[in-house]
């Protein structure tokens, strides 16, 4: 061919598969991802699926990068176009010098007319029809077959693929053979008709040892399991549903009493989100660690109860797996646009403690921490992840658990402590940290008090007295200062002399770090801070103070992180330059680099 062959790119390319949802391409895709992972090559997989069950276009994107840059790449080097409906779009998306593979049972030489892209036709359907009989399996085999084709083209390790097949179909041998056959057919066809491997190819490395490929909803569920959460209440909503699904699976295995078979957990599918948060508050009030996973619309419905939890000081853990808003928005796209809604959820002077994991690994540790914070601070804590973290496949370091870990249950009075008191006063701050001790129902008659969202004084009695009311809300404000010291410190990478810095949050992490590397190549050095919790601690204020130009990178339209910084720190807003991305797809390093370069061009930066 006359196409300028690209620089050979071992272990550095993006593979994208376009398909129709509901046709069972998931296992084929994860097999590709896992085979690369097991070859020791850093890899990630992102799933762009429709808010629909069957028949609409869906894509799976695998980025391979030996340096470990695993944000969305924004380019496609190898496209497998399995969905005729999106041929045009998919064809257009391939980078110059890239490859497009499609089912040439029905040739499309007209359509695929780009001179700068290699078109590789594989008659998948024909081969399937020749080799498999029943209709359903033909569709499935077509998918598994492109694994074989790609194995040849990318030089994947066939032993690993066999291994994966064996694991997957350990149970049903019949399927194993069919799948193996399909892969071999694809492999053979590619070997025979194309010069393998392509310039984009995999080479075994040793960079995935002590790592796992996992999604954040699964790790968050693990966090709840290990934190000792016993009551989970929820109402299904994309993209948070798989969090409770995972929790249930883990509980079924690890929370059954060995003798009695009783369930040492209770998961309640509520009638809606108002019900779910009410159940969590009820369970926490009664001393159980309790949580609810949801997404934006659920947070909106929980507003009244969140204010109640704040004012009555009841622990609660929420997971907001953010999706693309406003309103119903795009349920299967990602965004970080619930920051303001969560920080100040509910009417009146109300504010909440937030955690911001950046990836599945942090989702695990912060899930655990959320329960400690909620019980220590006696207030709702919202862990904000997003669809990208929650539902995509991330390469993370192994999760570790310290068996000496003791949960912080906060100021809960024991029977003896209650007995020792002359009188129990629910909202009396005795040690100045803004937190009053609570008692659990059923413990002791002297510990009884009345929980109410209406005006109450420091003794817990009903009040409409101006002064008594103000004492309580002023203490709540002080409690928030205590929270600043308890939320996890920010991740910071900074060199003294550099006065320019990034300030970002959550799943922007990878893209911003990659951008730092790209800018460094370009000779531009930018420090790095990623907030992990709200309210912001001293470390964030110091970072803001010690920089002249700060690029606030976030995935929403209204610069919500920047807004929180303006409201909750003493930063000069003119220092804060927003870099925003909010189209529903995960942010790119390129977007960040461009943002910085445009600003530099405007000559504003230090």
């Amino acid at each position, binding site marked *: 061919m006359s196409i300028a062959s690209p620089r050979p790119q071992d272990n550095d390319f993006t593979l994208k598969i376009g398909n129709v949802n509901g046709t069972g391409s998931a296992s084929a895709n994860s097999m590709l991802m896992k085979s690369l992972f097991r070859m020791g090559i850093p890899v990630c997989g992102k799933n762009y699926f429709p808010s629909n069950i069957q028949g609409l276009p869906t894509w799976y994107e695998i980025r391979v990068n030996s340096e470990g840059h695993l944000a969305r790449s924004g380019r496609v080097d190898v496209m497998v176009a399995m969905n005729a409906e999106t041929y045009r779009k998919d064809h257009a998306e391939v980078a110059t010098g890239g490859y497009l593979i499609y089912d040439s049972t029905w040739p499309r030489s007209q359509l695929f007319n780009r001179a700068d892209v290699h078109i590789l036709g594989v008659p998948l359907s024909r081969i399937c029809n020749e080799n498999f009989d029943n209709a359903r399996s033909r569709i499935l085999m077509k998918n598994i077959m492109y694994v074989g084709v790609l194995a040849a083209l990318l030089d994947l390790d066939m032993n690993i693929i066999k291994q994966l097949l064996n694991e997957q179909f350990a149970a049903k041998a019949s399927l194993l053979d069919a799948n193996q056959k399909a892969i071999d057919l694809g492999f053979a066809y590619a070997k025979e008709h194309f010069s393998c491997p392509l310039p984009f190819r995999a080479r075994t490395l040793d960079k995935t040892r002590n790592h796992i490929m996992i999604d954040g909803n699964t790790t968050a569920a693990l966090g709840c399991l290990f934190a000792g959460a016993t009551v989970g209440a929820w109402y299904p909503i994309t993209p948070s549903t798989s969090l409770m699904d995972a929790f249930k699976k883990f509980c079924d295995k690890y929370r059954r009493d060995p003798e009695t078979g009783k369930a040492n957990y209770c998961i309640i599918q509520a009638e809606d989100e108002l019900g779910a948060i009410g159940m969590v508050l009820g369970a926490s009030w009664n001393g159980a660690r309790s949580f609810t996973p949801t997404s934006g619309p659920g947070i909106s419905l929980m507003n009244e109860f969140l204010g109640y939890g704040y004012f009555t000081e009841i622990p609660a853990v929420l997971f907001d797996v953010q999706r693309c808003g406003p309103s119903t928005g795009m349920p299967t796209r990602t965004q970080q646009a619930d920051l303001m809604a969560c920080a100040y959820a509910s009417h009146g002077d109300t504010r909440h403690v937030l955690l911001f994991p950046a990836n599945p690994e942090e989702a695990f540790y912060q899930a655990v921490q959320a329960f400690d914070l909620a019980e220590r601070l006696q207030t709702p804590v919202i862990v904000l992840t997003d669809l990208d973290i929650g539902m995509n496949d991330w390469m993370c370091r192994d999760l570790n658990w310290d068996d000496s870990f003791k949960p912080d249950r906060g100021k809960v009075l024991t029977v003896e402590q209650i007995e020792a008191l002359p009188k129990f006063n629910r909202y009396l701050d005795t040690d100045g940290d803004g937190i009053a001790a609570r008692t659990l129902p059923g413990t002791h008659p002297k510990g*009884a008090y009345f929980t109410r969202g209406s005006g109450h004084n420091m003794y817990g009695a009903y009040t409409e007295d101006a002064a008594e009311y103000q004492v309580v809300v002023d203490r709540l404000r002080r409690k928030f200062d205590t929270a600043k010291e308890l939320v996890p410190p920010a991740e910071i990478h900074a060199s003294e002399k550099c006065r320019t810095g990034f300030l970002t949050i959550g799943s922007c992490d990878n893209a911003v770090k990659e951008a730092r590397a790209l800018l460094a190549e370009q000779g531009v050095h930018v420090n790095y801070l990623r907030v992990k919790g709200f309210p912001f601690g001293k470390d964030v204020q110091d970072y803001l103070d010690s920089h002249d130009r700060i690029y606030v990178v976030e995935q929403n339209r209204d610069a919500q992180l920047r807004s929180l910084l303006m409201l909750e720190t003493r930063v000069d807003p003119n220092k804060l330059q927003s870099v925003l991305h909010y189209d529903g797809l995960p942010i790119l390093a390129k977007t960040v680099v461009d943002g910085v370069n445009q600003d530099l061009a405007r000559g504003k930066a230090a």
Partner: protein
Amino acid sequence: MSFITKPKVAHPQLPRNELKLTVRDYEGAMSTLCAGCGHDSITGAIMQAAFDLSIPPHRMAKLSGIGCSSKTPAYFASASHGFNTVHGRMPSVATGANAANPELHYIGVSGDGDTLSIGLGQFLHAVRRNLNMLYLIENNGVYGLTKGQFSASADVGSKAKKGDTNQQPPIDPALTLLATGATFIARSFSGDREQLVTLIKAGMKHRGFAVIDVISPCVTFNDHEGSTKSYEFTRKHSMTAIYTDFVPPAKEIRTAYEIGQAMPVQMHDGSQIVLRKADGAYNPTDRVAAFEYIQKHQQAGEIVTGLLYIDETKPDMHELANTPAVPLASLPFATVCPGSKALASIQSRFR
């Protein structure tokens, strides 16, 4: 644990229960409701029932929504934890509380607005879960605390104090509960203390969701001529369908009931409820018959009271969830945290 609240004041004359407590030990703060409000009588009946059953005050949990009725948990059992939730959402809080600790006696007090208007969805879903609690609807046909608007239980033709007449058909708790599978449905009147106390005891012993719809006149906004929830109207038009006696465990039934007419129902703690038909036709274990009976009398303008339906056989939320007898909240951390080895083996599936 078994603590006993120190008797408030020594009243040598006052009778004491098995816990050596007097009924005064079941009192709460001073009521701030209007003089004569039906709700206060219900508060009294709850204290009496809890006293009679010798329930340790601190082993009860009192929950409510928002409204005059929902204020009442502050007026009894000051040695019990109370939870005054937001408007209409008490059932969900009770569900979570119950999931965490099945050992407490849960008493929910709500109003007709709190339950049948804003709270209808949560209420019926608690029914569906057969949540183990006693749920009282202090039903006055109006929103008392917001000054007398009609609630969803207002009858067609009922007159508001300000003059206008309600046109919309009421949501009748009893019929709705029969249709949605409730396992304990009773109706009473705040003016009939004796019946009410017995029903409360029975409801507290019921394993599952026990609802008592108590007509509780609002003297300030709905006790006038033309109201169908006034003391006078209720006295005149209510009729007992069935008499209920509560027999504590161990006590075997002494009173002789006429054959056929008496129907003992065995409760899970060994106590019994004995039902005596006021009206031979009535069968409180037959959903359809109960529906027909209540509907028929309703059309005749009569308010049927008593234990209208009971089914002790249905599993409650905990049985369905297969949770242990001990509170989940009390499980030691070692029991609920799988530990590092488990974490390692879990991760092997993610490579």
